[in-house]
């Protein structure tokens, strides 16, 4: 996997993160939304550790 592929993967991860963060903001009065999106963000963080962090190296 080359640097370009990694950047593309990272771009999709960041897009997903942005959507999840927006959903979280919309769910402040909606526990089932807020808590599930919080967990989703933790999983997205694992994608960042595995891919995004190294895309910038």
């Amino acid at each position, binding site marked *: *996997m080359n640097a370009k592929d*990694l950047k593309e993967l990272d771009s999709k991860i960041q897009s997903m993160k942005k959507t999840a963060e927006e959903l979280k903001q919309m769910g402040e009065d909606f526990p089932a939304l807020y808590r599930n999106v*919080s*967990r989703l*963000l*933790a*999983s997205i*963080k*694992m994608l960042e*550790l*595995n*891919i995004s*962090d*190294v895309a*910038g*190296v």
Partner: protein
Amino acid sequence: MISQQKYWNPVLETLAHEKIRKLQLGKFKRIFSWAYERSKFHRGLYEKAGIKPGDIRSFDDIRRIPTVEKSMMRGIQRKDPFPYGDALCVPLEEVSEFRQTSGTTGQPVYQADTWQDWEWWAESWAYILWAQGYRPKDRVFLPFGYNVFVAFWAGHYAAEKIGAEVVPGGVLDTQARILKIQELQCTAMMATPTYVLGMADTAKNKMGIDPRSLAIRKITCAGEPGASIPTTKKRMEEAWGAKVYDHAGATEIGAWCFECEAQSGGLHVNEAFFLVEIQDTETGEYIEEPGRRGKMIITALDRQAQPCVRFDSKDIIEWAPEPCPCGRSFRLIKGGVVGRADDITKVKGVLLAPSAIEEVVRGLDGLADEFEVIVDKEGDIDRITLKIEILKGREGERKRIEAQLKDQLRLKTNLGYNLEFHDYGTLPRYDVKAKRFKDLRGKH
């Protein structure tokens, strides 16, 4: 097919060393800033040393940062934000997991984790399990007591994460666990080396079941160095007809290294998630080259609730001279964790400080000052014998003393003992330094 992929992360696990170092430096700056900005404990430590986040530009700069020891964590805990104290970097409501150290070296250290940290634990273990050949088709049995100790909890979640099927063997006794493994044709399991051998012994000698006839083909060990000791590994592999792999981790650190399928005599440090430094215990010099032992100072680069930044683990390790034939660029430590920088030892997988026994013996009314602790092996299982003396004229209280002693030893050290009562004055006396603790396990 994803199951045929050799690496859990084909990018990070084969990254050139100089790129790994660049990644580590960047991630270290990030976790250092995080701890500095959010934890009174860390900020105080670093301000006292005159170091701010902007000062960290190289690995030499990192070495100027003070290390953290377990005793420091004990000192700040049981205070607000209760019970973690000032090392906590997130609001209490974001903490989703509590674990603690065994407490055999003193007060247990509490460990807070957020859900993201817990995902990170499982992620670290996913690297381990994939490298040891675990795949989605595996049915993994966990014969351990799910409790406040981290042990194989993260292994459980990682097995789920990689797509395997998990069978929790929590409160079952050994025989019931073996029957469940047999009934479900489990293909892998995780346990301490002592228990791996103990289970094999029970199956063979009490149940008439040859462990080799079961479907277990992979065993992941932790808690004791046995799986990195060639003779013990061989015994386990022969008993079960399975490959046995080692890994090392700790409550305050995480799962930081692992053996891979190549079984090349060392454990890979997960250098994408951890920064391992080795320091000469005599000179304080940092060791980069293979073949020189020193104590490990470790940073978990992504753990947030209660960061692990330059933790003085006191584990003795050394870099291996050759890369692993598996192709991973994560460096190997030769022979796993080969010892501890202090006098703490592991018995039955539990860290034991002789001072904890002394504390119990000396605190018990009716016992004389002298005692002796002998650790040896009964077959493959660690055995610990405590020899004590009852004070003259107190012999009639033996039952009460014995009961209290057993209770307090279990409470303070998490271990069961063979107690030997001797006549007063018959145990050895010492003039200068006492040798009350005798570890005979390597001398048979």
